[in-house]
């Protein structure tokens, strides 16, 4: 079967899967960014309990396998009375896993803002929370965007694992088509190309654009 015939026959399913992958990507990104920010601020906190919680999260989710985390959240948490549907368990696992890496990016960026900025905000009598929100984070954001671009591509590829708990994403559809037709090269080849196109023509340009906009707001461009 030629690739064109393949796409005519299975194109609709590939597109369905791609939409699910996109939804998983967007939701997991929200989880990752939120978790990364909270964990980074927690790790910089003076409160020992807060710091401990943040460090535990980062160590746990960065130090163990994403696939095992996915299975834990989907198969083991119900034993403790927390049952999540597969779609939610999917983006939550991927988001929390990537968020643990993101936390170190956010922390590094916050600490890379020049000390003089902290001091100037301090000299204006700003409270610690206001210093962070108004002065430090906007500048840290610019510094952390390039590594986040990298991490989001990693996140997109990580969402392929949710197919293993039967979320009907792109990888799931490719596997189904392969199982029923044995057209392995066409099925997995198409999936490969679609992941690449998403990363190369959606995520990368979007992050570049964001970097430009943020640089302009800093008056640098």
């Amino acid at each position, binding site marked *: 079967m030629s690739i064109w015939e393949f796409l005519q026959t299975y194109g609709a399913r590939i597109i369905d899967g791609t939409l699910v992958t996109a939804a998983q990507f967007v939701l997991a990104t929200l989880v990752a960014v939120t978790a990364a920010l909270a964990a980074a601020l927690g790790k910089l906190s003076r409160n020992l309990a807060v710091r401990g919680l943040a460090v535990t999260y980062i160590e746990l989710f960065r130090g163990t396998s994403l696939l095992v985390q996915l299975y834990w959240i989907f198969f083991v948490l119900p034993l403790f009375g927390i049952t999540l549907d597969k779609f939610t368990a999917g983006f939550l696992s991927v988001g929390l896993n990537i968020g643990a890496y993101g936390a170190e990016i956010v922390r590094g960026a916050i600490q890379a803002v*020049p000390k*003089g*900025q902290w*001091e*100037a*905000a*301090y*000299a*204006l*009598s*700003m*409270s*610690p929370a*206001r210093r962070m929100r*108004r*002065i430090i984070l*906007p*500048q840290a954001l610019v510094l952390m965007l390039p590594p986040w671009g990298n991490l989001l591509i990693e996140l997109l590829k990580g969402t392929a694992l949710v197919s293993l708990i039967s979320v009907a994403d792109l990888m799931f559809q490719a596997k189904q088509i392969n199982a029923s037709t044995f057209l392995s090269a066409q099925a997995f080849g198409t999936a490969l190309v679609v992941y690449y196109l998403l990363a190369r023509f959606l995520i990368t340009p979007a992050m570049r654009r964001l970097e430009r906009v943020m640089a302009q*707001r*800093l*008056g*640098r461009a």
Partner: protein
Amino acid sequence: MDHGDYPLELPEGDRPMVRFMNVTKRYGSLTVLDNLCLDVAEGEMVTVIGPSGSGKTTVLRMLMTLETINGGIIYVDGKPLTHMERNGRLVPADERHLRKMRSSIGMCFQHFNLFPHMTALQNCMEGPVQVLGLPKAEARARSEELLEMVGMIEKKDQHPSRLSGGQQQRVAIARALAMRPKVMLFDEVTSALDPEVIGEVTNVIRRLVGEHNLTMLMVTHQMGFARDISDRVCFFYRGKIEEQGPPDQLFGNPQRERTQQFLSAVKEAD
């Protein structure tokens, strides 16, 4: 003397705007300031000079509470800055007390430290709006007036990256003044500037001395400028005030050998 023995408030009639009492600052085993006693009267302009490492910048940073002190106490406008009252005794100040007290102190830094993500005007409005809770219109009017005074009103919508060092420092002065401080601190504000723009910053400070009743404490390496505008000059050496007096006396007829050596070394370098 234990800090519990210092007065809770300075008595009427003996209330300089700033008082350092037996202030000691150590970094590890290095004593940067040794039992410093220094009063600055309301409206007085005091300049601190001395070799690097003599503790002069530390004096300003302690007053801004950017540095904690290891001994003694600082009063601002008669009230304890580094300490606060609890059950009739003085205890080291907490974050809230420090924040309240330092709102009467403004500071300009050697490297300006303007917020790069805000325009000149936004830099000036940030404190009044966010900290003092002023309505935006009022904060804007106040900031524009100050930018006008420092000669930066035409550049009010520029980000700091578009401004020269001298222009940035003038905006930084306006930003500090927008908080209406009682005490202004200038920490080597001309040291990072190109020689040809130093004048535009010193002229602004000159005007402040002439027109406002601000209390000012300045660290500088520009002896001519210090001599021109100071009410009093303190020469710091190894964490102590080696000699102090009116500028004409200190520069014209220094009494101590260390002062003479320092001043002649500075003169040679010029």
